[in-house]
């Protein structure tokens, strides 16, 4: 395309490609390959960004993208046909854009889906737009929009697994696109490939990186059992945590803000920042590269700011990880919400009482200490 690519100078264009390589953790020697992939497209790839039971946190997080920036993404790299938080159109005009894109760009557009999809009460718990005076519900939209898409990016834990709305599944029927928590069987039944980019919210790099990867390779990145790209979700927080040494040394924070458990550089008096597992940190079971990638232009991240990891990229989030500030989750045992610790306590006491009673019985019947005692 030489001089100008979709409104960018050659120099700016290569800058965008370089930024895309950075986000994917690729060496800058990949820049020509990225350039080729992006230039290969005759026009900017169309994107539909639809929302079900969402909170817009994923969209707000995407606004924090740095390399490429959100302005570059929206104006230079992609053609955002529908993104309800930034687009100019409202009402029927906006809905018409979705319909036109589905019809005219069949098999070519990227569908970014944010939020869970509820199916109780005819799906009325999430709707946008009307058709013949009837609300268009999210569960209708997902089938229509995903079937004609080239790829679906389920952004955020709600879209991927059901997330927080799933904790109220009994009422709204909220599910992810392909998953219902850790189990397969979400709201989308079609065959278009779905890549999960969970997180509450997802780091902008995870989302933008996944989109750029797809544009470059025209296929989904290598994913784990839960459909998450391994390049971002390949390891646990715990394995890369800056406080891992404290965990190994047995140094644990017990009281928030306690200077005796915080490093001098962070305003405390301890040798290092103590591990937060006793405060319920979900780092050991949570997969993401937060400790390395960090957040908001790499300014900080939850554990770096002395808060726990709440396991927000996990399919179990939130109900399966509650209570967040306890070390083990509650499990549902025959309809009773309790912890493994409590079950153990009850069984332990029951066994102790049972054996004690048995011993009394043994003496009472003369099996022990009586005539039958010496067996």
């Amino acid at each position, binding site marked *: 395309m030489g001089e100008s690519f*979709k*409104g*960018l100078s050659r120099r700016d264009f290569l800058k965008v490609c370089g930024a895309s390589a950075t986000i994917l953790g690729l060496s800058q020697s990949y820049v020509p390959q990225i350039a080729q992939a992006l230039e290969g497209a005759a026009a900017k790839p*169309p994107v539909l960004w639809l929302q079900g*039971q969402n*909170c*817009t*946190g994923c969209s*707000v997080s995407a*606004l*924090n993208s*740095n390399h490429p920036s*959100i*302005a570059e993404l929206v104006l230079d790299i992609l053609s*955002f046909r529908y*993104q309800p*938080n*930034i*687009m*100019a159109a*409202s*009402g*029927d005009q*906006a809905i*018409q*854009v979705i319909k036109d894109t589905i019809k005219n760009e069949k098999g070519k557009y990227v569908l970014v889906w944010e939020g*869970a999809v509820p199916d109780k009460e005819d799906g*009325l*718990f999430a*709707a*946008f737009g009307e058709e013949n005076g009837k*609300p268009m519900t999210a569960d209708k939209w997902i089938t229509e929009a995903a079937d004609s898409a080239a790829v679906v990016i389920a952004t955020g834990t709600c879209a991927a697994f059901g997330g*927080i709305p799933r*904790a*109220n599944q009994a*009422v*709204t029927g*909220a599910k992810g696109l392909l998953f219902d928590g850790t189990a397969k069987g979400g709201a989308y039944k079609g065959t278009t490939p779905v890549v999960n980019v969970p997180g509450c*919210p997802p780091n902008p790099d995870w989302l933008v990186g996944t989109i750029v990867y797809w544009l470059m390779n025209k296929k989904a990145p290598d994913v784990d059992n839960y459909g998450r790209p391994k390049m971002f979700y390949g390891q646990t927080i715990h394995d890369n945590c800056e406080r891992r040494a404290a965990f190994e040394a047995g140094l644990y924070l017990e009281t*928030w*803000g*306690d*200077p005796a458990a915080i490093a001098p550089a*962070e*305003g*405390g008096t301890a040798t290092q920042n103590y591990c937060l597992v006793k405060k319920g940190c979900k780092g050991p079971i949570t997969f993401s590269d937060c400790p390395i990638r960090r*957040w*908001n*232009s790499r*300014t*900080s*991240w*939850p554990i770096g*700011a*002395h*808060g726990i990891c709440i396991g927000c990229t996990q399919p179990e989030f939130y109900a399966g990880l*509650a*209570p*967040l500030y*306890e070390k083990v989750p509650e499990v549902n045992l025959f309809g009773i919400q309790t912890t493994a610790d409590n079950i153990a306590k009850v069984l332990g006491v029951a066994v102790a009482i049972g054996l004690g009673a048995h011993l009394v019985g043994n003496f009472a019947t003369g099996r022990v200490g009586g005539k039958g005692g010496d067996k």
Partner: protein
Amino acid sequence: MAKVVIDPVTRIEGHLKIEVEVENGVVKDAWSSGTMYRGFEQLIQGKDPRDAIRITQRVCGVCNTIHGMSSVFAVDNAFGVTVPDNGRIIRNLIFASDWLADHPLHFYHLAALDYIDIMAVASYAGNDPALLKVKDKIVSLVKANDTYPLTPRYEPDAFVIKDPEVVTTAVSHYLEALEMRKLGHEMLALWGGRAPFFQNVVVGGVGIRPTVARIAEFTWRFEQLASWLENTYVADVVALGTGPLKPIHDLKVGLGVSNFLGYGAFDEKKSGDIKNRFFRSGVIDNLDLKNIKDLDPSKITEDVKYSYYKSASGLKPAVGKTDPDPKKADAYSFIKSPRYDGKPHEGGPLARMLMQQDPGFMELAGKIGVWPSAVARHAARAYETKMLIGQIRVWLDQLAKNINGEVCDDKALPMDAREGMGITDAPRSANGHWVSIDKGKVTNYQIVNASGWNFGPRDDKGVRGPVEEAIVGAPVPDPTNPTNVVRVVRSFDPCLACSVHIIEPTTNEILKFKVT
């Protein structure tokens, strides 16, 4: 009479539908309905109350700090903790950083496209290199025949700014603002771990301790953002509000209910104490600015006659219930109708600034005329940004002087029955959480969310909510281009996932105007 449905209303947070009846080019009646429900109040029942501080932030990805703060105030209150000064100040810094990121986002990215004809950029004839770059960008989009997401749009009406110089400058500020608001989130992340959804504010205070290094890291970002906000954002709002947009204000587009309410924001003495806040709490009735009443939270109730809930109407939030019924007859919104003393009240920047009556703001308001309107709300938002910038410097100073102070009063989960209330103003309105706990679990949780105050449907008496009221009277000469309606709606900065209680009307014929 023409019925206009705007569904979805875009460039807001959440799912909103607005329906209006237009007669002789003027809106006669309006219905605002939220079209999404997840049920945070239901799903947090039986959970650990400390989880609420993390989970209720996810009520809304835009207002997350507000819900986090309201929730932590409520749980603090229930636990009976005394937050140390440094904990309180760090919470203020986290909260304020979000306001500084949120206000320009609202003005440039959500609202501005209603006021400018972005295609005028193509006629820019000046030679400012930065503006020429903006022009090149837009022209190349037009040439490539792909101007999404800037089009389609409502046809520019008579009030839209078409001067190429002004529009091009505004668009360049739109692009700058995208970068600048990131700084606000970086400031938030420095104290809170990440943005959106801060992670380290806990019952009793915060987990993070202040250090000189962190204050410095915060300060350089803050001063860069502050200077841009004052010289660009505030300047833009004032210039546009007193200039090209004054005709819209003069037409009194978006008058509203003239009752205002504020919970106050940014604790200056004790955490959660509504009497000692940087932005005052109070109540104004009928625009009577001489008579600002004290806020009495016990006068807050929520009506649900026109909301999709089968639970009782008119309940106080501490004993409120949220039990959805999306097929309830006559109902048309998942948003409840909060009322103070039985009357609708507008919350948000205009309410705050009228409560505050800072001489600077009153002077600005005097210039354009003191009445509530879409333009006045934007002006109030800009002015309070300026006030907040000054106060952040004060907090940083206080923090630096007491750098070794405690940050958290960490108390164990109480097992007895407790109740807590946490209320605070949000960038866009007044937000409150009420929690009841027993045996270490949440037994009841009610959120009277910020946008509920403004976007709630009619109450039991049939009185319209503030936004519905504000839309009435808006000139809509062409029902296919209801630009003034969306201008008014967006001036309230809707943020509706917040209004967790929201459902879509299915059969109700009245409801036809949709805003997403």
